[in-house]
Structure formats: structure tokens, C-alpha cells
């Protein structure tokens, strides 16, 4: 069974007194939403070519074996610029084997495309952007599968997100490949997800290029991630995230950030001209400490000493990264100065003058796991720093070969 949405022009109003280009939009809001509700399992919904404006979230729920296909990434445009209701542009939830392909989503008030609790979700050639470029008022995530299994994101484009462009959270068996993320705070972020492969992507001109995070207090914890053959360059954009979100603490100029996760391989990537740090390996302890510093500055907030303890109260959560294998990447940095707007940038400016580090490890010891199984095989040219952050950087150590790989065994199964 095939669905086609028809439309026709009725009326065109133009403003006579100025020269700017007039973009004409159609409304297919009521009919498209009705299709998304009445579509039968196994159907394909064909969206026509054109610019389509929506005032409310679109939602599809509880469907199986559905394809929603546009006429092309530049041909079928769904815009939520006039949105007055709903926190997402398009929300797909509680389904199986859903494919979305060949269209664009723009300017939702919250997330552009959220996919929640779907087993089998493919996003192919979807362009998801905030058309006016990076702004704090933009929605958090351009492409946002969460609580999903079997996720494929392929040949997509994400731009302008005030949090992460391509963000996969609390999901299993994930592939993010051949996609582009730029002008977001985080380009690509995998959070509390398991069995993730990120390859063949270009992440550039974000605040941070690719982030692999594990956070406390959620439905599941992440591990087993392979990040390879990506081009991660010039991620030096100002951080425009709304304060309070974890990505607001990312220093501009971050290539790859590995936070509190384990069993990760980083290989074959070009990590180039990310001015503050090529790759950071840090624990949630450091994030909490930085957060506390911020809180101390805000004397008006009371009762927050519990904050740092919250993650410690989560007995299932391990705040320390381990099992990290970094090898055969191409690290280059022609920048002399890290982001001096950020405390971490200032630190690197002082401790590695005119030579921002390629790889940084916070060095905070895990009392339960003295051997952290961190292995770096990048030759003698890279600048590697162990911060000794637990002791106020007292025993900060520089040296390309300080992470011995002998005896390191990391399972990526």
C-alpha cells in the first residue's frame, strides 16, 4: 500500500517593500500527521518534494516495518520554525524496524528528530539543522535515538545543535557512519550506549568533535565502542550550550572526549587542528570537581554539596575510564594556543606552552582498579600528558610513551 500526500498552491502573499528572498512553504500538517497515525505496519510513506511548515510536533508511535521517504535531502524540507506545540520536530517511538530517509528537518523548538524505544531504526540521508546556524536557543539534538536497539545512522548531516548533533543515548548495537556534524556544541556523542561503532564520519567546527560519555543515574551504563577512520578536525567553535548540561563543560578545541567509559578503541582517525586537546580521557570525578568550582562561584545556591555525592551514591556506576586503546591515529595540530576562555585551556597553555597536547589523561586514580588498562601507541611525536588532577596537577607528566601497552587486554565484544 502506498501513501502519497498531495498538495496544491492556494495563495501566495509577498511583502512588496523589501528584497529578501521569499521562501514559499506549504502546509501538509494535518494530512501528514493523520498518515503517521493511520499508516499500517509494512507501509512506505512517500513525502512529496517541497518546503513544508509545521506548527506542532509530528509523531509516529507503535508501528513496525515502516519506511518514511522524502524526495531528497534538499528536496523535501520539513520546517518547525513556526512551532507552537510539542517538544520535538518529529518523534518516533515504540516501534520496530523503522527507516527514515531522504529528507530534511529544520528549526524545531526542542529536538529536531527524536527516536525513543525503537528496535531497529535506520536514519539515512537525513539532514537535520537549525538553519540560522549555532545559537544557544536552538534545540538540543539534531538526531536523537534514545533507549533504542539496532541503530544505523548513515550519510546524515547535523548542524546547529545546542547540545549534540548526532546523539545516541542509552542504546545498544549502534552504527554511526559516513555522516557530517558541524557547528554543534558536540558533533557526535554516544552516551551510556553499548556496542557502538563510529566510523567514516567528518566532525568539524564543533566545540568538541566526538564524545563518548558514561553518566550516572540512568537506565543503563555504556561500554564497548570503536571509533575509527573519522576525520575530526577544527573543532574550535565557542561553546554555546545552555549551562547545566554536561556538554557546557567541554573546552572549545576538543577533538575526542572519552568520559568514564570502558572498552574503547580509537584508531585510524585524522585528529587535526583541534586547538585545545586532540583526545581527552577523563573521569566523572573531574567533571564533578569542575562543576563544584562553578557552584562555589555562585554563592546564592545552597545545599549543593550533595551534588558531587550523587554519582558516588550510584553503586552501579563507575566514574573512571578504563580499557582504552588509542593507536595509529593521525594527530596534527598547527594551533599554538588552546582555548584560553576555558580553565582547561589555560592549564594547557601553562603546562604545555605553545604546544597544546594531543592526548590528555586526568590521572585520577580509581581505588578499586589500580591497573586501568590504558594503552597509547602513537609513536614519539605525539604530546601526551597525565594531569595528576587529583593532586592539583602536582605530578603532571609529559611523555609520548607513558602508557605502556604491555599486558593490556581490551575486549570489544
Amino acid at each position: 500500500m502506498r501513501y502519497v500526500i498531495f498538495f496544491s498552491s492556494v495563495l501566495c502573499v509577498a511583502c512588496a517593500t523589501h528584497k529578501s528572498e521569499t521562501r514559499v512553504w506549504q502546509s501538509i500538517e494535518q494530512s501528514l500527521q493523520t498518515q503517521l497515525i493511520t499508516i499500517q505496519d509494512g507501509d512506505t510513506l512517500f513525502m512529496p518534494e517541497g518546503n513544508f511548515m509545521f506548527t506542532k510536533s509530528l509523531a509516529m508511535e507503535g508501528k513496525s516495518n515502516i519506511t518514511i521517504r522524502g524526495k531528497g535531502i534538499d528536496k523535501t524540507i520539513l520546517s518547525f520554525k513556526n512551532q507552537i506545540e510539542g517538544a520535538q520536530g518529529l518523534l518516533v517511538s515504540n516501534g520496530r524496524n523503522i527507516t527514515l530517509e531522504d529528507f530534511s528537518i529544520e528549526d524545531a523548538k526542542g529536538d529536531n528528530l527524536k527516536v525513543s524505544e525503537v528496535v531497529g531504526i535506520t536514519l539515512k540521508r537525513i539532514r537535520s539543522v537549525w538553519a540560522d546556524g549555532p545559537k544557544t536557543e536552538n534545540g538540543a539534538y539534531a538526531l536523537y535515538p534514545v533507549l533504542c536497539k539496532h541503530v544505523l545512522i548513515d550519510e546524515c548531516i547535523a548542524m546547529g545543535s545546542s547540545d549534540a548533533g548526532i546523539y545516541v543515548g542509552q542504546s545498544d548495537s549502534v552504527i554511526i557512519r559516513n555522516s557530517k556534524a558541524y557547528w554543534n556544541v558536540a558533533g557526535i556523542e554516544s552516551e551510556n550506549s553499548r556496542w557502538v561503532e563510529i566510523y567514516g564520519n567528518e566532525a568539524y567546527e564543533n566545540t568538541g568533535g566526538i564524545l563518548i560519555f558514561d553518566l550516572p543515574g540512568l537506565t543503563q551504563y555504556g561500554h564497548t565502542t570503536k571509533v575509527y577512520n573519522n576525520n575530526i578536525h577544527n573543532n574550535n567553535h565557542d561553546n554555546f550550550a545552555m549551562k547545566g548540561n554536561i556538554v557546557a563543560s567541554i573546552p572549545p578545541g576538543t577533538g575526542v572526549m572519552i568520559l568514564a567509559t570502558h572498552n574503547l578503541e580509537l584508531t585510524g582517525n585524522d585528529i587535526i587542528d583541534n586547538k585545545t586537546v586532540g583526545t581527552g580521557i577523563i573521569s566523572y570525578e573531574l567533571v564533578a570537581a569542575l562543576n563544584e568550582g562553578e557552584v562555589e562561584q555562585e554563592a546564592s545556591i545552597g545545599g549543593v554539596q550533595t551534588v558531587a555525592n550523587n554519582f558516588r551514591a550510584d553503586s552501579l556506576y563507575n566514574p573512571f575510564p578504563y580499557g582504552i586503546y588509542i593507536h595509529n591515529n593521525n594527530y596534527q595540530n598547527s594551533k599554538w594556543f588552546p582555548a584560553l576562555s576555558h580553565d582547561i585551556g589555560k592549564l594547557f597553555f601553562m603546562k604545555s606552552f605553545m604546544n597544546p597536547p594531543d592526548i590528555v589523561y586526568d590521572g585520577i586514580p580509581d581505588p578499586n582498579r589500580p591497573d586501568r588498562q590504558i594503552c597509547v601507541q602513537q609513536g614519539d611525536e605525539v604530546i601526551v600528558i597525565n594531569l595528576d588532577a587529583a593532586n592539583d596537577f602536582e605530578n603532571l607528566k609529559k611523555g609520548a610513551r607513558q602508557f605502556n601497552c604491555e599486558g593490556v587486554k581490551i575486549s570489544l565484544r
Partner: protein
Amino acid sequence: MRRISLLVFVSVLLSCESRKQEIVVLSEVESAIDLSHIGKTKLSEYGFFVGELKTLTPAAGVVAYTLNSALFSDYALKKRFVKIPEGKAVTYAADDVFDFPEGTILIKNFYYPADFNKPEYNIRILETRLLINEAGVWKALPYIWNEEQTEAYLSVAGKTIPVSWTNTDGQQRNINYSVPNMNQCKGCHLRGDNVMPIGPGARQLNGDLEFSAGKQNQLVYWQTHGLLQGLPSIDAIDKLASYEDASIPINDRARAWLEINCAHCHRADGPAKNSGLYLLASETNPARLGIGKAPVAAGKGSGGLLYGIVPGNPDASILQYRIESIHPGVMMPELGRSITHTEGVALVRQWIEGLK
């Protein structure tokens, strides 16, 4: 087949003066879609009411009920009924919504009086939402009333209806009331993979209602009329506070407000479980409640604030910020309101101020 009436969006012009691009939206063409496989197309076909439909006079076997604390829906008033198949009964459960027998229908009518000082007069019913238990699976169907108030029609795609009323303080209020589309129904009613009722459980029904024979506890009434089995002594039953009852401690009222307005999603098996914020009145873990909890995926919903709840400081609390907001990308709940519940958010504010 029924023709779906369409929102006509003639044109929206943005900023002729500025350098910004101009947006022109053309109207949508009508299309006809057959909905008969989804449910009955007219509310009257169910036979829930006798006499004039708009009087909502229940037919035999249709029983009115009320909740101790109700979800805020832009100040709409609600008349609720349940129809349990003859000869069947609900089995009592202490904590959760009741497990209603197959064939049960929950009927919720949303209406506004012209003047809230005279809530029984000059009533305009906007929509009737049905939850129908078919073979153990609940389905949610919205019916939209016509202007003549003679019939309500099944609508899958929802509708925006301008409404105005006079407030109890004499002020005129105007809103665009939003009837949810069928997916949005599930947005609130989904528990795991299944649609579930939200309100009618023992804690919510444990209160008095005016029946034809006089005022009576609803649970007792249900039991004496054969609708409920296994009811323990009424003193042994937990009761969800009425957040509107000023004689009850503020903690109980605020937690009741948070439960009915937030916890259908913010619970361990609800659609917002990914946030790690759980707001059932029974939640005792401070971090799960949001106290000192950093946001997970809030984006600009954080409002630049660091924690869900900062005890003693509602203005530093993301939860307070989001329940007060009417920005679609910030506001909580995400659906079901276009304005702020002034009394409700004041209650939560008072509660956070008193937290230590």
C-alpha cells in the same frame, strides 16, 4: 468516510522589515480518510448518555467518578465516567491504577463554563476522550464536539480550538485549546509498550463523591455496586492528597501535583525514564526526585541552571523553571497545556522553598 476538517493556515509573514527571510505558508488541501477501522465515528453511537448528549446524563451501568488530584489541562473542567461490563468487577490493587476487566471504557469529557464562578452553567464541551479495553489492550480515542453541542466526532489528528472564559476573579481568559492527536494520547498513557489509564486507582479514588443516594466514598460505592472486589478496610487504604486542599501539608500537596502532572512519564517504566527523574509521590531517593541532580538531555530546558531541584531555591531549580515555562522546547509537561498552572507552580515553589 468522513472529511477531516483542516487547519487553514493562510499565511504567516515574518519580519518584513528585517533582513530575515520571509515565510509564507500556504493552506492545506482537504483530504478524506476512512477512520471506521479505528473506532466508532460518533460518540453517540456508544450510548453512554441518555437524553440530550450534552447533558452527559449517564445511562444505566455508566458510573461517574472523580480523582483526588487531577492533571492540569489549561483549566478545563472534566467529567469522568467508567463503564464496566455487567457482571465483571475490578480487582483491588493498593498502589497502581486498577486492572480493569476487558470491555471497560473510561470516559473523560473536557469542558469550559463561560464563567468559572458558575461552573454548572453555559457549558461548552470541547472533547471526550475514551480509553477502551479491548481484549486486554487499551486504546485511546479522542472525539471532538461540534459547535452545536449535539455530537462529537472521532478525530485522529487533533485540533486547535480557540476558547475564552471568565475567571473566578472576573478576568477574561483566551487560549488556543489543543485537542491531542491519537499519538499524543499515547505520549502520556504509555507504560512500557502498553497504553494504560493514569488516574483511577485506589489512592486517587479514595475520596467522597455525590451520588444519587448522597455523598459516599467512591471505593465503597464501587464495592457495594459490585464494581470492585477485594476492598480492604477503608482506613487501611493510602490516599493521594488533593493538591487543592489547603488543609493538607504542603509536602503532600506538592508531591500529589507532581505525581499527576509529571509521573505518567517520569517513572521507572514511563516514557521519560531516560531522564533519571522519577516523580511519583512514593519516590524517596532525593537524586531521583531531582534534588542536586544534574540534567541529562535537557538542552536549553535547563534554563542555564545546574540542578533539577536546589532545596530552598526554586529559582535555581530546573524543575520549577520548566513547569513555569510555556516555550514548547522547555515546558513540562511537554503536552496538554498552553498556559501555566499558576496555583500548581506556586505550590511547588512553596515546597522547594521549604526543602532543606
